[in-house]
């Protein structure tokens, strides 16, 4: 067992945890998106670590990282689109005030 792999995976785990905390605890849409970015960042670390320490000669791993980066950019684009639309309509992107879907 190499400490490098474990270190990288622990970093990923910690970022994932911090991201979950952020996404759940924040009331503002933009801050929630930051939490999601951190979760994805955790995934990125894991992917790179797996590629490097387990399969350095198979580039599908690096490819996957590129896709996740694309997803991060997508998340930003769509998230901010929604945020602007919501701010225009309600004057708020606070999730406490987004109660329209409450049963």
């Amino acid at each position, binding site marked *: 067992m190499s400490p490098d792999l474990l270190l990288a995976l622990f970093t990923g*785990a910690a970022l994932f945890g911090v991201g979950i905390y952020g996404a759940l605890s924040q009331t503002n849409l933009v801050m929630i*998106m930051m939490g999601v970015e951190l979760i994805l960042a955790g995934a990125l670390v894991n992917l790179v670590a797996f590629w490097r320490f387990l399969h350095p000669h198979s580039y599908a791993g690096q*490819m996957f990282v590129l896709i996740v980066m694309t997803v991060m950019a997508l998340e930003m684009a*769509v998230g*901010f689109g929604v945020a602007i639309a919501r701010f225009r309509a309600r004057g708020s992107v606070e999730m406490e005030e987004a109660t329209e879907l409450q049963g």
Partner: protein
Amino acid sequence: MALISLQTVFIAFFGIAAIGFGIWVFRTSSMMRSALALLFSQTALGAMFLAMQAEFLGVLQIMMMATEMSIMAIFMVMFMMDPGGLGAMEMSHQKRLSILAGVAGALATAGIALFTQWGVVVTSAPAAAEQTRALGTELLGRSMLIFETAGVTILTAMIAATAVALPTLQRKRNA
């Protein structure tokens, strides 16, 4: 482990930096600081990729996140009630639950990482130039379809997001 290599030191250092900045994101009330803390967290991650000899991905991560998080910063300042963090407002809810979920998530993933049999760890990675070339071949060979799909998806998302964000015709007439 008798000998701790330089690589290990670097991975640990940048990993801790990334986590530290990640936590700082939610501990400051200034929006600009949050956004830039996230940026530095991602940059530290990029540096960690470099330490793991994934040169192309590391540089790409460092480059993409700089612009991405700067854009994040402008939206943060736009959509926050108190962007400067002067009022020391509370902007979080369900704190206990979130902390629990976060810790549980981190522990679960860490546990999986610890107890899984990962198999043989490869000690050497291909040289950077070779990697870049091989990644390019991968992108334009076997994974081309996936990559093209990602490209089209991001274009669609850009158009959709712009369409959503534009003011409606009705409102334009009223203005």
